[in-house]
């Protein structure tokens, strides 16, 4: 072995140096780096404002129901009736604003069982609700299922609330009132 190393020795390479060369492990000192992108979406806080109150207009005592659709159209059943004079009927309308096309949950509170009138007289009420992306309600008359979620379209949505009112045969005359509160949140 020493003979083969003689040329190296002639060039002045010490034995220790050869040993070091021999021990160099076959691994590159290579390092590498790469970059990644990071993203985050900060949403516009969701907001809701009331645009229109819910107005039934005038109704006549009689056992039956008056239904006010989400488009503000009234229909009746049974012994009650409504009048076309008096206050014009309107469904409640709420304007929602937020970010993009995100979805949101909806909660309804308020007078969700009865309206209260003179001398604490009451009338049973059941909401008819829908959430739409344009200011065009669909004349919904079904009170059995409430819209529990909605979707924004370009940051806007609308909630319409009509109701089914149960009138009694001896319903006391006077003004009955209540309120409907909608609470929305991104979900």
């Amino acid at each position, binding site marked *: 072995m020493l003979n083969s190393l003689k040329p190296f020795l002639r060039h002045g390479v010490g034995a220790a140096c050869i040993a070091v060369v021999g021990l160099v492990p076959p691994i590159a000192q290579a390092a590498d780096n790469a970059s990644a992108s990071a993203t985050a979406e900060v949403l516009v806080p969701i907001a809701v404002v009331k645009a229109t109150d819910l107005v039934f207009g005038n109704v006549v*005592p009689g056992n039956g129901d008056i239904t006010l659709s989400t488009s503000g159209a009234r229909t009746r059943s049974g012994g009650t009736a409504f009048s076309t004079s008096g206050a014009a009927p309107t469904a409640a309308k709420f304007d929602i604003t937020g970010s993009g096309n995100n979805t949101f949950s909806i909660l309804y509170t308020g007078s969700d069982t009865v309206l209260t009138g003179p001398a604490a007289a009451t009338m049973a009420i059941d909401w008819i609700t829908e959430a739409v992306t344009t200011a065009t309600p669909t004349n919904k008359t079904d009170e059995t299922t409430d819209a529990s979620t909605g979707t924004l379209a370009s940051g806007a949505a609308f909630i319409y609330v009509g109701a089914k009112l149960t009138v009694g045969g001896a319903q006391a005359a006077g003004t009955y009132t209540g309120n409907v509160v909608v609470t929305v949140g991104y979900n």
Partner: protein
Amino acid sequence: MRGTLAAGALLVLALAAGRPVDAASAGASVTVRVTQSVVVQALLGAPLSINDILDALRAPAGPSTGSVLIRLAQIAPALTQGVAAPGFAADAVPGMQAAMAGALTLPLSGTLQRELVAAVSLIGQEAGNDAQPSITVAFN
């Protein structure tokens, strides 16, 4: 002082909110006006003349306000004559036409010239009650 007052106001607002910070709420009022019914006559029977109706309409107004409605407990054939009289009209009531027997031609829209009658509804046929030939008038 101003600083602490402002902080106090903010705290009151936050406590009054009473809902999660991520939610937003708004409320709408709901109103219904129930108009008073006044029984003008019982057992008017048929035929019913338009004068009976007008007498009822001219009666003193009741304590509650609202539009006047005439409610028929039963089909009153004579009322068809009243319909023919000028100025008498009735609002459309769903199912009313189908519940009628005979050629009852109530106009579908319009208001009484005397600005008292606003709507007519049929009760007897739809509710299965055919024994009450009375008229109930609700006054404005």
